[in-house]
């Protein structure tokens, strides 16, 4: 093989290396599912890459939809909002609950009690 060829190969190797997430940790999380026994290398790579895309997608869309455009900040509430509003992010609502004040929560609890009483 010629030197030029090899250089090309090295370049390709580094371009596929663009994953910034730790692969071993992704594997750890994947393996923590009880039904999963074996994970193909390609599947592991794809999941890692997908997670990376997902994180970027989540961050960007919450920033665009969020309130912090003027101040150039991405805050928790932007994330919680997007999780609630966007269908594809619905599975995040458990991990990204909207923050509400305790007194509002208590109020809603009371209202629920009243409704129960009326029934």
């Amino acid at each position: 093989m010629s030197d030029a060829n090899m250089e090309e190969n090295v370049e390709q190797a580094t371009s596929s290396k663009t994953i910034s997430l730790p692969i071993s940790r992704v594997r750890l999380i994947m393996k923590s599912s009880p039904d999963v026994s074996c994970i193909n290398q390609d599947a592991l790579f794809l999941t890692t890459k997908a997670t990376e895309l997902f994180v970027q997608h989540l961050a960007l869309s919450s920033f665009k939809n969020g309130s912090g455009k003027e101040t150039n900040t991405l805050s928790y509430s932007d994330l919680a909002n997007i999780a609630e509003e966007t269908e594809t992010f619905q599975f995040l609502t458990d991990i990204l609950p909207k923050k509400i004040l305790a007194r509002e929560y208590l109020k809603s609890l009371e209202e629920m009690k009243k409704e129960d009483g009326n029934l």
Partner: protein
Amino acid sequence: MDVLTVRENTTTLLRSYIGQTFYNKTVFSKKQDLQLPDGVNVSKEARRAISQAASVFVLYATSCANNFAMKAKRKTLNAGDVMAAMEEMEFERFLQPLREALEAYKKGQKGKKAASEQKRKDKKKSGTDENDKSRDEEEDEHMDEEQDGDNEGEEEDVEN
């Protein structure tokens, strides 16, 4: 199994494995990880939430993909399962970039193999300069990382 059950499974799983999140100081501390426009500050809370969301995403994707594997009575998760899972999760937008990434990755793997063979030859000749050596060493580390994975499934997918 429908998506809702999968979602429930994922949440229960997450509760027990909450310790295994991506959260540490190094992950997502770089701006380029999030690909946000320049000068955007991400609050600490948001950062943590994002890394937790990433962990949930991995679990969700794994359990979706595993369903496809189980349907086909396979024990090993393969690339096709992950792709099918992405579709099921309505992340079709990821399919194309993922396909490209996988192709690049496979090419890279082949390149690495060729490069390490080349390296062996070079070692016999012992005619490499410093620069090349350090590059080769980097690649070696990567190969080690991959080898401790599951090798069982690898053969199935070689043809694709």
